[in-house]
C-alpha cells in the first residue's frame, strides 16, 4: 500500500467517524514528521501527486515584463480552460536555477524559461530532460526549424523544450565616444583597445569571454585551435576592463551612467537603452554570437498539462506580446506567422527565419570543454 492510499484510508476513517479529529491529526502529523525527516517517502508522494492530473504546474522565468506578459496572455486563459493553476516563480540566472533544480525532487519544478542549447545539453547531462509529445503541441509547427533541430540532436530525436525567442550578444558602444565606423572597423577587437582602458566592460561569464577571446584572436569560437591565444585575449580584456557585469540591469546601468563606453551586450537590453533615449550603438560582428531561449519541461512533470501550457505559450498572440515586452524576437517563423509591426524592428530579428547570419554555441564542443574552461576562466579572471 502506498502513502497516498494510506492517507486516503486514514481520511475515510476520520470521515466515517472511526477515529476522532485529534487522532486523525496526530496520525497525519506523525506521518508528516517521519516523511519529512526521511525525505524519500515525501518525495515519492510529491511525484505521485505531480504525475496525476495536477491542480497546478510550476513555471519559473526571468520575472518582470516577461512574466507579466505570460500571466496575462498565457496563464490566465490556460487556467480558465483547464482549471490548472500556474504557479509562477523567478530566478536570477541560469546557473542559479540549475543548482536549485539539481537539489530538488523530480516534479518539484515543471517548466522554465531557460537559455538555449548549451543549458539544454547541461540538463540532459544531468538526466533532467523529459520527452514531449509533439502531437499535443500543434503550435510547434510555427517555430523556426533551425532552432528546434539542435535540441533534437542532443536528446536523440525527441525534445524536452520548445524554442521561444532568440537574440544576440553583440558589441554595445556609446556613440558619444565611439563612432559607428570605428566600431565596425574594429569589431570584437574594440573591447581590447588600449585607448578605452578603464572604460571597457564585459559579461563575467566564462563562455562569452572565451567566445569573444576567440574572435579577438581570429579563431572560430566553435573550433578553437590555440586556446592559449584565447586566454591571452581574455587577460588583455581583463586588464583593460573596469567591471565584469553580472546581470542585464547592471549592464544597462554601466552604459547609461557612462561608467563604461564599450562592452558586449544582449540585444534586447541594448534596445531597451536605445528606447530610453541613450545614444548607444549596437553591432553584431561577423560570426556574431546568437542564442535562443526555450521553454523547458523538466523530468517528473505532469506532461499532458505542461504540453497544453506550452501550446498556449506558443500562440502567436502570447509569443508576440512576450517578445515585445523583452525586446527579443520570438522563435515563430516569420515566413509562416505575421509578426506585426514591432518585431521586425527588434535587433537580431531575421525576416528570413533561417538565422543563417548568426553563430551559436556548439553544445557538444562547449560542454566537452566546460569543466576545464570554466575553472581556468575563474583563475584568469583573478590575475592568473
Amino acid at each position, binding site marked *: 500500500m502506498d502513502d497516498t492510499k494510506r492517507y486516503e484510508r486514514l481520511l475515510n476513517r476520520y470521515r466515517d467517524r472511526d477515529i476522532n479529529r485529534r487522532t486523525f491529526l496526530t496520525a497525519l502529523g506523525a506521518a508528516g514528521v517521519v516523511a519529512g525527516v526521511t525525505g524519500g517517502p515525501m518525495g515519492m508522494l510529491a511525484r505521485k501527486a505531480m504525475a496525476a492530473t495536477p491542480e497546478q504546474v510550476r513555471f519559473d522565468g526571468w520575472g518582470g515584463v516577461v512574466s507579466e506578459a505570460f500571466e496575462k496572455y498565457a496563464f490566465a486563459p490556460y487556467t480558465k480552460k483547464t482549471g490548472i493553476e500556474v504557479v509562477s516563480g523567478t530566478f536570477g*540566472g541560469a*546557473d*542559479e536555477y*540549475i*543548482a536549485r533544480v*539539481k537539489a530538488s525532487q523530480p516534479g518539484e519544478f515543471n517548466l522554465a524559461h531557460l537559455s538555449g542549447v548549451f543549458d539544454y545539453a*547541461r540538463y540532459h*547531462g*544531468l*538526466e533532467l530532460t523529459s520527452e514531449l509529445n509533439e502531437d499535443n503541441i500543434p503550435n510547434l509547427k510555427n517555430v523556426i526549424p533551425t532552432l528546434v533541430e539542435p535540441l533534437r540532436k542532443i536528446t536523440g530525436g525527441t525534445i524536452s523544450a520548445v524554442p521561444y525567442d532568440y537574440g544576440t550578444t553583440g558589441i554595445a558602444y556609446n556613440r558619444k565616444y565611439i563612432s559607428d565606423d570605428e566600431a565596425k572597423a574594429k569589431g570584437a577587437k574594440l573591447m581590447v583597445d588600449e585607448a578605452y582602458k*578603464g572604460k571597457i566592460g*564585459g559579461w*563575467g561569464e*566564462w563562455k562569452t569571454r572565451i567566445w569573444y577571446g576567440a574572435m579577438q584572436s581570429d579563431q572560430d569560437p566553435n573550433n578553437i585551435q590555440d586556446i592559449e591565444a584565447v586566454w591571452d585575449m581574455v587577460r588583455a580584456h*581583463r586588464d583593460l*576592463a*573596469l*567591471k*565584469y557585469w*553580472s546581470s542585464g540591469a547592471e549592464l544597462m*546601468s554601466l552604459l547609461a*551612467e*557612462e*561608467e563604461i563606453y564599450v562592452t558586449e551586450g544582449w540585444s534586447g537590453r541594448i534596445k531597451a537603452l536605445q528606447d530610453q533615449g541613450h545614444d548607444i550603438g549596437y553591432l553584431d560582428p561577423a560570426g556574431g554570437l546568437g542564442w535562443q531561449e526555450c521553454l523547458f519541461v523538466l523530468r517528473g512533470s505532469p506532461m499532458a498539462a505542461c504540453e497544453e501550457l506550452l501550446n498556449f505559450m506558443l500562440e502567436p498572440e502570447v509569443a508576440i506580446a512576450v517578445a515585445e515586452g523583452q525586446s527579443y524576437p520570438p522563435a515563430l517563423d516569420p515566413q509562416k506567422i505575421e509578426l506585426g509591426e514591432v518585431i521586425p524592428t527588434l535587433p537580431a530579428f531575421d525576416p528570413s527565419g533561417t538565422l543563417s547570419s548568426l553563430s551559436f554555441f556548439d553544445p557538444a564542443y562547449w*560542454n*566537452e570543454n*566546460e*569543466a576545464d574552461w*570554466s*575553472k581556468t576562466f*575563474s*583563475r584568469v*579572471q*583573478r*590575475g*592568473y
Partner: protein
Amino acid sequence: MAADVAGARRTPWVLLSPSLATISLLLIVPMLFIVVYSFWLRTATGADQVGFYLDNWIEVLGDRFYRDILFQTLLIAFYTTVICAFVGYIPAYFVANTRMKSKAFLLLLLMLPFWISYIIRTMSWINILGTSGALNTLLISIGIIDDPIQMLYNQQTVVLGLVHYLLPFMILNVYVSLDGIDKNLTEAAQSLGCTGFQAFREVTLPLSMPGLAAGSLLCFVLAAGTYITPIVLGGPRDAMFANLVFEAIVTQLNWPLGSALSLVLLALLGALVVIYTRYLGIDQIAKSFK
C-alpha cells in the same frame, strides 16, 4: 535514592533535548553532508560521482591559486577590521559617555542600517561614487575637478563597502564594553593626577579591549565570509574566497569542490573563533546582542 540521582542527571539533558535536536538537524547534519560531499567528484556532465576521493582536497590544499585568494581574503578582512576598530570606537565612546537624554535614540540610530537590505546598502555606493554619482557631481560643480574621477570597482571600494556593512557590529560591541566600565575609575585616575587622555589610555582603553576584540572577531569573520560586496563593488580581479565557493557550486555546478572550499574557509574562521574563546571568552560577543 540511586534512581533520584539518575533522574536528576537526566533532567538537564531532557530539557536540552529540543535545542540539541534542532542544532543537530539544522547545523550538524547539513555540515556532515558537506563533509561527505567534499569527497565526491563532479563528472563531465555535472552529475556527482559518489565515492571516497581525495581529489578535491588535494586540489584545494595543493593549489597556489586557492592559497593566494585565501590570503587576499584575509588581508581584506584585516583591513576592514582595523578601519572598523578605529572608525567605530569614537561613536561608541560618544554614545557610552553622552549625558544626552536621547541615548536610546542614538542606539536606535546604530541599529537603523540593519533595517535596510545589505545589498541595497552596498549598491548605494554606486550612486555616491559613480562617474555621475553624487561625489563626482559635487566636485565638478564646485570646480575642484573638470572630469569625473574613477572611484568605483577596485579593492578600496570593496573594503569601503565592507566597512559600511560591518561598522554597526563594531560600534555595538565596543559600546557594550565601554558602558560597563565604572565611571568612578576614570574619575579616580584623574583625581590622582592623570590628564583626561592619560585616564583614557591607562583605564578606559584597556577595560574596553574585550569589546574591541569581540567586535574585531565579528567583523573579521563576517568580512572574510562575504561574496556580495566584491561582486557589486569590485573590479574583474577582485574576489574573495567565498566567491570561489559560489562559482564552484553555482557556476561550475561542482558541489564537491565547493564543499571542500567552504570547509577550508569554515575551518580557518572556526580556528580563529576557538583561539578567541580560549583567551577572551565568547560571552563578550553575546553581551552586545542582549
